[in-house]
């Protein structure tokens, strides 16, 4: 559809762009990225024919850009730019109707039924039909932007060029606009070329991205390749972190603020653990990076409060998450900042240990009961009935953990727990074999993310060794305590 070949040029004698070549296929959503001054807008202006091309060629549908006259070009390419001046109070409909200019030919250029239908349709699609008789000067920035989008769409273009289309739009309209464009590309084969400032939006919606750096192409590839931490860091010269989108397969970038945080030494140890009759609480001065399987605050996140709540053995609630959240609120915890677990174990039987490693330390607390012990290798013989967890393991690490280390910590802790059950010869009541855990165990790994960087937590790494040892000892002690209580 569009082919740019060895193009150089710019505003004056100095070439802003140097030897740019790329192709865009029909129906593609093509994003152009780059820091300020990298030549994004210049490139767009060249494609739309506003700026002269000093070297190279641009082909549209196989024809050279220069061979098109203004009207022919406007029938193929429509542009939505960042700023539009409006000195006079045209009505919204008059503004949108101007988009039909290129399609009206002949001396008298009459307004046909077809023109009217198209104008009404695009006004519906962009949601401006409701105020079509209002003056454009009375509209908000976002509404204006949509009116000009409608104007561009009224041109019935095959290629739509956008210069930061989401600039004046609030969150919901950003999404709506991009959803709309994306749908058009798939349904009507509209080709979209858009400049983005927001890397995440670009990563979410574009099929391909072109990253410009100082007027040259850094890379032209799929979003996942373009949005790489090192590349973006180099081009934009800023600290960022890449992480996957939670719902769709798209890369996302987050900024790392360079604010000097006066991070107090935030060391988690036994002195911070408070055991009450109803719950065990640990509150950290600063939020900790967590990975957990609790009732509240599960998954990954940042949390400050950690609650292990005692519930009755027969606890049964249709909406246990909500009930737990209410319980936390009553006791003065903010559910969004809290990891909450449940257990039927008597909380006095909690066993905890603090171990010092080289430059880091860990604190582990376990509540254990083996009433419904299960051998996971034969668990298919069990029927599923969710019950409050009986071995809840908390592992606090005073150090900085990588994502791998979090996962490895969970593996190491689980292996240590299984070994403890094996050594205590805990038997699965259904299968009669040695159990590896209970059916509803929960785990929490929480790290201060300050101090020493701990890259791995496999069983023979310094961290893994401590976790294995602490979890094994605490689990053993916890099970023994609860078994003793049962006998009494």
């Amino acid at each position, binding site marked *: 559809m569009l082919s740019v070949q060895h193009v150089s040029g710019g505003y004056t004698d100095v070439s802003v762009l140097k030897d740019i070549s790329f192709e865009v296929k029909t129906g593609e959503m093509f994003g152009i990225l780059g820091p300020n001054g990298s030549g994004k807008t210049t490139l767009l202006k060249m494609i*739309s*024919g*506003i700026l002269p091309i000093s070297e190279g060629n641009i082909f549209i549908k196989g024809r050279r850009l220069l061979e098109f*006259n*203004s*009207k*022919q*070009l*406007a*029938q193929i*390419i*429509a*542009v939505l*730019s960042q700023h*539009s*001046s*409006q*000195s*006079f*109070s*045209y*009505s919204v409909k*008059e*503004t949108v109707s*101007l*988009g039909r*200019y*290129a399609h*009206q030919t002949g*001396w008298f*250029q009459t307004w046909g039924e077809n023109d009217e239908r198209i104008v009404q349709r695009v006004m519906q699609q962009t949601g401006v039909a409701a105020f079509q*008789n*209002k*003056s454009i*000067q009375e509209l908000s920035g976002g509404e204006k932007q949509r009116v000009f989008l409608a*104007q*561009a769409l009224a*041109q019935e273009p095959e290629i739509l060029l956008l210069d930061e289309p989401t600039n004046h739009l609030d969150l919901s309209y950003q999404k709506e606009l991009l959803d709309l464009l994306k749908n058009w590309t798939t349904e009507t084969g509209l080709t979209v070329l858009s400049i983005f400032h927001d890397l995440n939006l670009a990563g979410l919606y574009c099929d391909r991205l072109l990253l410009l750096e100082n007027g040259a192409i850094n890379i032209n590839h799929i979003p996942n390749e373009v949005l790489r931490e090192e590349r973006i860091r180099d081009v934009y010269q800023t600290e960022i972190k890449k992480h996957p989108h939670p719902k769709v397969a798209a890369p996302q970038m987050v900024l790392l603020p360079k604010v000097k945080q006066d991070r107090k030494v935030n060391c988690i140890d036994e002195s911070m653990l408070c055991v009450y009759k109803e719950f065990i609480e640990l509150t950290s001065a600063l939020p900790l990076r967590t990975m957990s399987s609790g009732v509240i605050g599960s998954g990954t996140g940042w949390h400050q409060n950690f609650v292990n709540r005692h519930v009755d053995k027969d606890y049964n609630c249709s909406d246990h998450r909500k009930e737990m959240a209410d319980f936390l609120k009553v006791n003065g915890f903010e559910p969004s900042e809290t990891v909450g677990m449940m257990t039927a174990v008597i909380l006095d039987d909690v066993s905890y240990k603090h171990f010092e490693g080289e430059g880091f330390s860990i604190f582990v607390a376990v509540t254990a009961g083996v009433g419904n012990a299960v051998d996971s290798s034969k668990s298919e013989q069990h029927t599923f009935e969710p019950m409050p967890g009986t071995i809840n393991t908390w592992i606090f690490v005073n150090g900085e953990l990588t994502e791998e280390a979090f996962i490895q910590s969970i593996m190491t802790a689980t292996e240590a727990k299984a070994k403890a059950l094996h050594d205590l010869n805990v038997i699965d009541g259904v299968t009669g074999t040695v159990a590896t855990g209970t059916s509803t165990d929960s785990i929490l790994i929480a790290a201060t993310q300050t101090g020493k960087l701990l890259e791995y937590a496999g069983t023979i790494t310094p961290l893994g060794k401590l976790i294995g040892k602490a979890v094994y000892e605490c689990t053993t002690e916890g099970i023994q305590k609860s078994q003793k209580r049962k006998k009494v």
Partner: protein
Amino acid sequence: MQRLSIRKLLNNKIAAYGIAGSFLILSILLGISIGTVSVPIFTIIQIILSKLFGWFSIEQIEPMFSSIVLNIRLPRVILAGLVGASLAIAGAAFQGLLRNPLADPYTLGVSSGASVGAVLTLFFNLSIPIIRSFTLPLLSILFSWLTIFLVLSFARKIERSMRVETIILTGIIFSSFLGAIISLMIALTGDELRQIIGWLLGSVSMRGWEYIKIILPFFVLGSVILIFNTKELNAMSFGEERARHLGVNVQKRKLLILTAGSILTGAAVAVSGTIGFVGLVIPHLSRLLWGPDHRHLLPLSIITGSGFLILADLISRTIISPTELPIGVITALIGAPVFALILLQRKRMERSG
């Protein structure tokens, strides 16, 4: 409420033309009727119809009336109307093209440019063979054309975005400079002094049918060019880049519109001297009443502009009768406050975002 009334007006283009047309006809009749000798309106209609179609015999009417109407008042009114129409449509076109509600042949300095051309002709007593009586308007047009391009390129040098105020300021600079040149020529002149001064004050009196013949072809030419570019003007009032994206051949259309504007201004100045603010007030008023769509704004400006100047001329010759005020005094008295008002409004709008 406001929206409803706007919608009503938009759908009522016929009413708009009706109102404007009635205003023009009323102005014409008043302009012919009122004066030192008052001519009854019915008589005027009779005289004109008989002259046009020969329906009535003119003999029943007093010859004095028919002479006053046909030889003095009618040409004067038509000339005022043509000048008003030319200035108003030129102003509307300049405003749309420059996205600037303050632009008008007078504030842009184009009128002064045309004056220089006219004064030069009178000063050197120029008369190009063949075109003879058209020497004056042609030189005026040439000079107004040169002035508008000088003003615009100078304004662009100051500031690429060509803000409203920058263009107006540039226009004022050029006006002052050109005014000084005219003063210089007046100071140097001898016998031609009276003619130049009388012409400069701006008037449509005692010009007769001769002058109508001079302005009419230019008025038709300029207006036709502009009327055929109304859609382009609509597009360009959203900015040249936007117009380009919509498919307008900006370079060509801009040249056409500026040339047409210069033709209209130059011809108007050639027959009546500099009359300010018509091109500012009339398009502004029309836009306020009937919306900014140039397809209607330009024709409506022609109609209301001519009516307005006919009335202004009527006031100028009756208010301190038997002495005549220069017509430019009346238009400036109305125009300058309107100019100030638009400026205030714009600033308020910019501030409120």
